[in-house]
């Protein structure tokens, strides 16, 4: 039993996976504000992708994959909206069929040619692009879902995979609609 000046935690709700998209002014410290809000309030970040999307208006788009109870997800959105450089915040459930999610990964494969080609073949269905080729190695780019890349990186171990570099997820809605 801990003796403290605070109450004991109440019942925890069910955790859902959400993709939060934040449009921000591309200025010094803005990423630290967003990330600091997550760490400071104990929210979770599974992956993060950020880049400028409008050079003229100086807008960056941050895509964050997070998990939390509905109450926590709601707080994340409301707290983000309070930050001064934040313009808008969108929130998608991971299961949302109306949203496309993609991650990119680079695989470095080292080994004999037959192993490497086997690996390349296995990558085929994930839009594999051979970016670099030497007598000993390949660098292959794939774009896929997180769990697919997880599986690939496990399976390619025996086929000479020596290094992986991967991005966080980016997201976009299907169809002509744009999030306002």
């Amino acid at each position, binding site marked *: 039993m801990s003796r403290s000046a605070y109450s*004991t935690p109440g019942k925890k709700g069910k955790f859902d996976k959400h993709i939060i998209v934040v449009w921000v002014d591309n200025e010094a410290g803005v990423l630290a504000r967003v990330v600091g809000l997550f760490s400071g309030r104990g929210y979770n970040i599974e992956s993060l992708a950020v880049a400028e999307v409008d050079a003229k208006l100086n807008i960056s788009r941050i895509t964050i994959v997070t998990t939390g109870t509905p109450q926590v997800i709601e707080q994340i959105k409301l707290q983000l909206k309070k930050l*001064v450089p934040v313009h808008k915040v969108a929130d998608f459930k991971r299961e949302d069929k109306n949203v496309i999610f993609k991650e990119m990964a680079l695989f470095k494969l080292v080994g004999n040619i037959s192993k490497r080609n086997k690996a390349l073949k296995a990558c085929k269905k994930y839009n594999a692009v051979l970016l670099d080729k030497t007598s000993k190695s390949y660098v292959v780019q794939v774009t896929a879902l997180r769990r697919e890349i997880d599986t690939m990186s496990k399976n390619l171990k025996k086929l000479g995979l020596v290094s992986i570099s991967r991005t966080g997820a980016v997201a976009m809605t299907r169809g002509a609609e744009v999030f306002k």
Partner: protein
Amino acid sequence: MAKLSTGAEIVFKCLEDQNVEFIFGYPGGAVLPIYDELKNHSSIKHILVRHEQGAGHAAEGYARSSGKPGVVLVTSGPGATNVVTALTDAYMDSIPLVCISGQVPTHLIGTDAFQECDTTGITRPCTKHNWLVKDIKDLSKIIHEAFEVATTGRPGPVLVDIPKDIQFQKAAYTKPKKEKKLNGKHHKRFNQKDIDELIKLMSKANKPIFYTGGGVINSGPKASMLLRELVQATGFPITSTLQGLGSFPGDDNSFLGMLGMHGTYEANNAMHDCDLMINIGARFDDRITGKIDEFSPKSKKVHIDIDPSSINKNVKVDLPIVGDVQDVISSTIKTIKKTKPNFANSNKQKISKWWETIQKWREKKSLDYVNSTETIKPQYAVQRLYELTKNKDTYITTEVGQHQMWAAQHYKFDKPNRWMTSGGLGTMGYGLPAAVGVQIAHPKKLVIDIAGEASVLMTMQEMSTAVQYNLPIKIFILNNEYMGMVRQWQELLHDKNYSESYTAALPDFVKLAEAYGCVGIRATNPSELDDKIIEMLNTDRPVIFDCLVDKQENCFPMIPSGKPHNQMLLGPKDQEQNKITGKGKTLV
């Protein structure tokens, strides 16, 4: 071509255009150009503190008692880190502060230069927003925006970090622009439908209660006037959080006293048993709700707040109304007048049973204590102080601990902006510098810091500031030689193991007062207390009042952890029958 001004000049032009009269600050290497410029701006007076934390709290006291933003000026490095506690305090209690800090010259940033620190990095989580000025052309715009952000929406602290070279460089000054969109974060989203829904709930309720907080004070004095009108128009009982005290008269019959951990029996029971809770500008803080799972289980909850992120953060509510308290109450009253002009009377019958129940709780007299003729009881000291000052439009600040709760329980406020206390962060050492700031804003008024001897030692150096500017603040110390609230918890939860909560080598506060050049008064027994208080009130200089009180007194009532909200621990007599045991210990 427009006339060019130096960065330091631009700082003062901004402050002038923002109608700033006082700056609380402390000079140092990285702000010297700004200090050099001070002499050319006679409308702005600088108050020299003795520690930057004191500057921050003084600015908070100034802001809370005047409704205007407080302005702080500090140097880089330790100047900035010393003000962090005050910024965090202001952030927790939603107080508008604009802090200007010096920074090492831009070419030295990142080199671990002398008195360099990552000020914007350190203050990011304790400000609404902060800026590092990298281009002199941005300076005026940034300072004006800083005032805008600090004072709009839910108020709070902001910081502008200005490197020394920027203070020397020149640019054209630009006046503040009235922005249509108030930094995009100002929400006034409620509509008439929300108000109609609220009134529907109100007319259905049998056991309603208003639960009001600091948001009413922050909304301005008019909000407090409207709140009184609303209570009158409905006949509903009202309770207030620590921060909301003064928005409704403390001696009015509709007022149930403060709620929460050390709130009254009637307020907490009414919160627990009500069927309609109308939260106006409060935030369901954990000191109010106790155990969330058992908080007011049978009520419909309405939450009126300007900050959308306050809603559903701790407690799920049935009707959220996002807006400025003043606007929401005003619309509500208008609608009641239009649609139910006789609301209070027609409703009287319906809620009369509720008032009878409340009356029964009231008869418990939960704030009572066993008085003594030998030693001064701290509650008695606060009561006497109240009786002797209640006709003087007194401003009260406090430190943090038992004395703070006794002040909240026994000093009754009837106006907003008269009560300055650190509620959210609970900063010991807040009250003395805050009193300095209050007295600056109200030079002719009586300003008293109800203090504990442990808290007040944390910022005691600011007595020197009070003496320098002839600020006749009264430091009323309830001296029990213990960190009283720590000792109380150790007594109740840690088997009376008073680990490190006794201060063995306290200074002689009377001599200390004399050393600072102010007046020291000591009261040692109840029979002399009134005379000594009157002596203090008649002294037109700063006073340290050393009131020697009962060392063992505990602060009751108290929500005894682990038990439901409606079973409070009352005074010493009741305590025997309600020992805190087992699981309850974790919850205090």
